[in-house]
């Protein structure tokens, strides 16, 4: 799947991006020959047939794990190597947090259906779901700056993914968290509501299910019956859904990273597009696919843990 998606992106990218455009309007203008001379060694010249280009790109990945170079000659491998971790940290962290928060809220509000807490929770989620990521991020930046000013020291960093010159295991972790916390909050805010609503409605369906009534008739209290019988069944579809939220979170991360000045994959994506960097774009797509696959795998594991019927068959 990942391979197919990546190759597809390769061809799509060639349909939309043209490295040649980078040299349009240069002063002094470059001649056709010069452009080709610049691009050809980088396997980016459209004078070579597309299939041949594709093959040299693809074979380099298969045989040498070399993802190619950008139009200016930077190695994609180098770029991705460190950005990858930066983004993975953000995307996976935010997804897990948003899921946990969504499920928790879903359970909490469902067991208080139509009461005040449920209504507040629902209203809040409707609002956050519709907030634009840019607005959310900027709002958080402002709040954090306000907070920093108030306590007089920089608790939250609003730009970058780490500070220079920090050493020692714990200082590095603390520093990373200080940077991580704001963009993560931004992503969680826009991302949790979907899970919240799904969990809430599934649990409500299950609370009224006959088997929960049977459980109560056995002598479980309502709370026990819900926790033991309704929750388990309602978690299964939620777990499946989480895999599919990862691409969404990744899209959110693209903008978040730019706002918070992170040097991650998201920002890299914007840059590659702007610079007609086909190899970079494709590598990012592959990264997205890998993240989704990881999500799907995690979801599968969760389903197996939750649903013993799967284990039996």
């Amino acid at each position, binding site marked *: 799947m990942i391979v197919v998606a990546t190759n597809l992106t390769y061809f799509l990218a060639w349909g939309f991006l043209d490295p040649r455009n980078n040299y349009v309007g240069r002063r002094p203008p470059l001649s056709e020959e010069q452009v080709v001379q610049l691009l050809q060694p980088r396997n980016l010249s459209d004078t070579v047939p597309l299939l041949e280009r594709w093959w040299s790109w693809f074979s380099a990945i298969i045989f040498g794990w070399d993802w190619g170079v950008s139009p200016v000659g930077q190695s994609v491998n180098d770029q991705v190597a460190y950005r990858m971790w930066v983004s993975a940290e953000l995307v996976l962290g935010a997804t897990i947090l948003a899921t946990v928060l969504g499920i928790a809220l879903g359970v909490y509000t469902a067991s208080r259906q139509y009461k005040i807490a449920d209504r507040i929770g629902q209203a809040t989620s409707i609002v956050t779901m519709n907030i634009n990521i840019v607005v959310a991020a900027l709002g958080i930046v402002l709040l954090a700056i306000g907070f920093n000013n108030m306590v007089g020291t920089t608790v939250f960093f609003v730009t970058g993914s780490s500070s220079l010159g920090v050493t020692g295991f714990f200082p590095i972790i603390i520093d990373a968290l200080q940077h991580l916390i704001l963009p993560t909050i931004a992503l969680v805010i826009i991302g949790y509501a979907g899970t919240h609503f799904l969990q809430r409605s599934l649990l409500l369906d299950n609370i009224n299910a006959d088997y929960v*009534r049977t459980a109560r008739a056995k*002598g479980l209290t309502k709370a026990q019956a819900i926790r033991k019988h309704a929750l388990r069944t309602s978690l299964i579809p939620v777990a499946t859904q989480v895999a599919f939220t990862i691409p969404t979170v990744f899209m959110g991360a693209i903008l978040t990273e730019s706002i918070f000045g992170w040097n991650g994959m998201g920002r890299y994506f914007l840059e590659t597009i702007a610079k007609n960097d086909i190899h970079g774009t494709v590598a990012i797509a592959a990264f997205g696919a890998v993240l989704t696959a990881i999500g799907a795998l995690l979801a599968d594991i969760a389903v197996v843990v939750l649903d*013993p*019927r799967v284990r039996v068959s």
Partner: protein
Amino acid sequence: MTNALLSVRDLKVSFPSETGTVDAVRGISFDLEAGRTLGIVGESGSGKSVTSLAIMGLLDENVRVSGSITFDGQELLGKSDKQLSAIRGNGLAMIFQDPLSSLTPVFSIGDQLIEALTVHRKLSKRAAWARAVELLETVGLPNPEGRMKSFPHEFSGGMRQRVVIAIAMANKPKLIIADEPTTALDVTIQAQILDLIAKAQSETGAAVIMITHDMGVVAKTADDVLVMYAGKPVEKAPVHELFHRTRMPYSIGLLGAIPRVDKAEKQPLIPVKGNPPLLINLPDACPFATRCPIAIDACHTREPDLVSVDNDEVGEHKTACIRSHEITDGGLIDGHPVFPVPDIPERALAGVPREDRPVTLEVRNLTKTFPLMKGAFLKRKVGEVHAIRGISFDIREGETMAIVGESGCGKTTTLLQIMDLVEQVDGDILLGGTSVADVRGGHAERTLRRDIQIVFQDPMGALDPRMTVADIIAEPLRAIGTKKAGSETRVDELMDLVGLDPTHSNRFPSAFSGGQRQRIGIARALATSPKIVVLDEPVSALDVSIQAGVINLLDELKAKLGLSYLFVAHDLSVVRHIADRVAVMYLGAFVEHGSVDEIFEDPQHPYTQALLSAIPIPDPDVERTRERIVLSGDLASATDQVGGCSFASRCQLFKVLPPEKQARCLGEVPPLTGPENAHRNACHFR
């Protein structure tokens, strides 16, 4: 009164709703002693389930419950969920209607059963397991030890209901409430489950509340009966009193509306006209007054209380009717029946012998197999489901042919094959003499299709809620190209024919009750003036009092229009009433086929005998004294390709046969034998 195990006094339950407060239960009182069974009957919506949930304390918090429920000396109303949970499942147990959904799908049977044990008492793992196995054995689950780790979806409905009963029995309760425990099950399974509940009762000495809409089940199980209507008990009596000295018009109507499987003469059923009232802002009047044929002015001024019937020696017979004392045994008032007996027009063809009537539908060696697929992603064929294994029959003009059998035996598949005019490989379907193999597509096929129409089981689901009734009825007309003007008069005509008011034709289906919707479905089927109407369980979703009206309508239409019906049902009482010929189907094949009276009076195949003996008869004297054959086991699977008689695994006759004869049952498929057109069966030894 003090020795009562359960004492309910003036119980009232009301639900808040958008249109106003729904008074679902409006004052019900009764006492129940240990070891006795109280039957609560009534139509859907009469408050039976709400009463039981109120006793269990399983209603939502926003539901208003008042009155008093004393169980085992404790007042239950007002107790917290936590306090109640100590009683629920311990002293007080419940069996629910739908076994398919009442077990948690993600926990094993064993876990769910053990939970019922350990929630009330400390038990070691080993002891709990042993007790659970013992319980499964008590409820008759084969191989209980191995079944502990199974999940609910691996079980059939009947087996799941056994598990639910095992859970209910787990802590030797003093009271078992069974809310329609067999409604979702087939008759042969119903007989098993009712026996099992009786066994559970005798083993634990428990009292039982048996909630049902089936008068037959009441006659079979109850000691005392409470008839509910519009949230109130309208008649209460010991079971024999209730059936033989019925004093309340509604109960009389309920009993008169039931077709009897043990009565040969074809009297029309007596429907109760109208529908139960909505339970919002009920006026202070007898709630049955609008449907009661003997209502007088006084009935509309005050709601009658439940009081003792004057001439009652036992002193336990109570009714809520101001004219009860005028009613005499047999449902007579002033020498006339309370409910006037409707007359059904005599059929034009009644005098013509069967052989002289034209054949409208002939089916020869109909077969259908489904491939059995496995795997989620790449499906591969792992076997075949033999849904129909070669059946043949014919239907003559003005005749009703019924196919009966348990769920999954292939009834619906048969109908669908016929409706789709599916060309047969080694057989044929002939409509009015035309073979479906000869007409493919275009005009000829459309003409053929006009002659055969279908009415579905579910009156709610079968009608498009966004179409007006006129559109729904005119749909088949449009399909055959009738002009708009022509179809409008036809719609009015049809609505009148099925007993609906033609001025309501621009309303939507939601404005009609279940019985009326089924009439709409019938009108639609009649639109193209078909020769044959196929009915798939047309009345099984309806309450008896409504059902009777629809059955009478079908009878009437057959007489008026000379229709033929192909009727599929699992309710044999209805079949006995409506059919001329019957085929009993088991695992995709007919095991017995013949005229209705032959089959019901002289059932020959062991399966037919068991099926008939499983139906509870709404008469406690008959029901409690007759001999009964209770089949063991569930319906076998249609996947197995059997080399012998497919019924052998459950056959009661097989069990008593000598080994050499048993070998024949297992080794040779019994064909349908016997006089053609009269009475044939597929058993080697009958």
